[in-house]
């Protein structure tokens, strides 16, 4: 968060946001499951201006050997931004931001994947951000969850993810790029949709307790809407299988 920059009006007098959305309105989301040949499961997602591809490999023998757990599988989550996905070219390769996102996302999925079924194995999730427009970690987690289901990995629930935050003095759902850059707060969140519990939560910025509660409710409602789109993508995928296409 860069904090409120006065020269940009994020919310107009009618309460509409820069892209015309209402405070609790999400950007359009589309998901397609089963888009890659070599990955065991995959999904392509577009969310506002974000374009995200997720692939899942495994469960397979965890390497290096010392990373293995004799009692259960481990989850690896690689989050990576393509160099051309952002305004200023991103230097290829891992950085501290992508490592952190990978870690918290892997922990979110460790909550739902039935890891005990696969001792010494790893479930490897690879997410590539092809184009970024704020909210990439939520987009990455949402796509990865569909890819895991597409790969047939046993899960206790789907994980859906969505952010809320504060921009132009108002709590809003799903920050757009300018709201993310010039807004006051960002709260990305992910939920186990079976239990309704939160499996990822981060926050930066400045929110009153009341505002935080609203942001939390917005983000959780957002996850529910995302979950419906995830289910639709999987249904469409298996409709295709039934019809003998894929």
């Amino acid at each position, binding site marked *: 968060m860069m904090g409120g920059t006065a020269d940009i009006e994020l919310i107009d007098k009618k309460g509409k946001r820069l892209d015309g959305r209402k405070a609790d309105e999400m950007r359009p989301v589309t998901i397609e499951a089963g888009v890659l040949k070599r990955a065991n499961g995959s999904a392509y997602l577009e969310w506002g201006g974000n374009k995200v591809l997720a692939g899942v490999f495994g469960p397979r023998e965890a390497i290096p050997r010392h990373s293995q757990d004799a009692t259960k599988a481990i989850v690896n989550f690689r989050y990576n931004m*393509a160099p051309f*996905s952002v305004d200023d070219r991103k230097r290829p390769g891992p950085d501290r931001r992508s490592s952190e996102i990978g870690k918290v996302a892997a922990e979110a999925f460790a909550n739902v994947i039935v890891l005990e079924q696969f001792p010494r194995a790893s479930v490897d999730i690879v997410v590539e951000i092809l184009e970024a427009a704020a909210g990439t970690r939520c987009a990455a987690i949402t796509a990865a969850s569909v890819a895991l289901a597409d790969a047939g990995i046993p899960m206790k629930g789907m994980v859906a993810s969505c952010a809320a935050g504060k921009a132009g003095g108002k709590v809003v759902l799903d920050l757009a790029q300018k709201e993310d850059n010039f807004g006051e707060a960002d709260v990305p969140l992910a939920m186990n949709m079976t239990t309704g519990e939160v499996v990822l939560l981060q926050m930066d910025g400045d929110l009153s307790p009341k505002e935080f509660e609203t942001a939390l409710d917005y983000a959780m409602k957002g996850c529910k809407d995302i979950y419906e789109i995830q289910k639709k993508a999987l249904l469409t995928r298996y409709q295709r299988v039934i019809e003998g296409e894929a």
Partner: protein
Amino acid sequence: MGHDIVLSDIKRDYVHRLAAEGRREDGRGFLEFRNVEVRPGIIGKAEGSAEVLLGSTRVLAGVKMIIGTPYPDTPDKGAMATGVELNPIAAPDFESGPPREKAIELGRVVDRGIRESGLIDMKALCIEPGEKIWMAFIDIDILDFDGNLFDACSLAATAALLDAKVPISQVDETKKDYPLPISEIIPIQTTFAKLGDAIMVDPSLNEEQCMDVRLTVSTDQNGNIRAMQKGGGSGSFSRDEILETCRKARDIQVGLRSLLEGIRA
């Protein structure tokens, strides 16, 4: 090492036997490419971009333009760099980490094909001699690997450059972005795999794993040869095989070239 993919002996024998009979696993002729699709301009934040689907192989090239200082030996020329990542999303045996031999060879072959053919007009990318130039970064993301990355990457990079605009408005609001200056010579790369005595274009994943050796030939619209690379194994080519392969490359590039028609920022 990592999750190595080993082709079974029975599959290997099968691919070799088919080749000896003049046939291929997917029913193609030896001089037939798989279905190729070029989708330019799909990444809004890139100055130029193109996705190429070659059978199930899928790669995405993006161009970013940055202002920098010229190299001392070319004060009046722009600069370019090509990077290829064997993204672990693309195959079970691709691993994260710094590019290794395979990715470096691939990146360098694609880079040479563009650089040495003069595809980009480097002089036109000079802003102030000795002081300021445009640098073009071509990054290629491998998304799904089903064989023949060389041709998929080179086609994607070329299409992304054709699609690219110089973002001059970012530094001077009074000016309008303009298409990246491109020369009239556009080389097209075709890769051949040799299995036993058989030589086939656009090897599939299994064919690549079985091949003795590979030859990549880049030809321009005048039929001249602009770049070559032998690789992919310890096998060898005879003089006649090399000349024959060059002739085939000249014929085959026509079809691929037509896919680039109409792409211009």
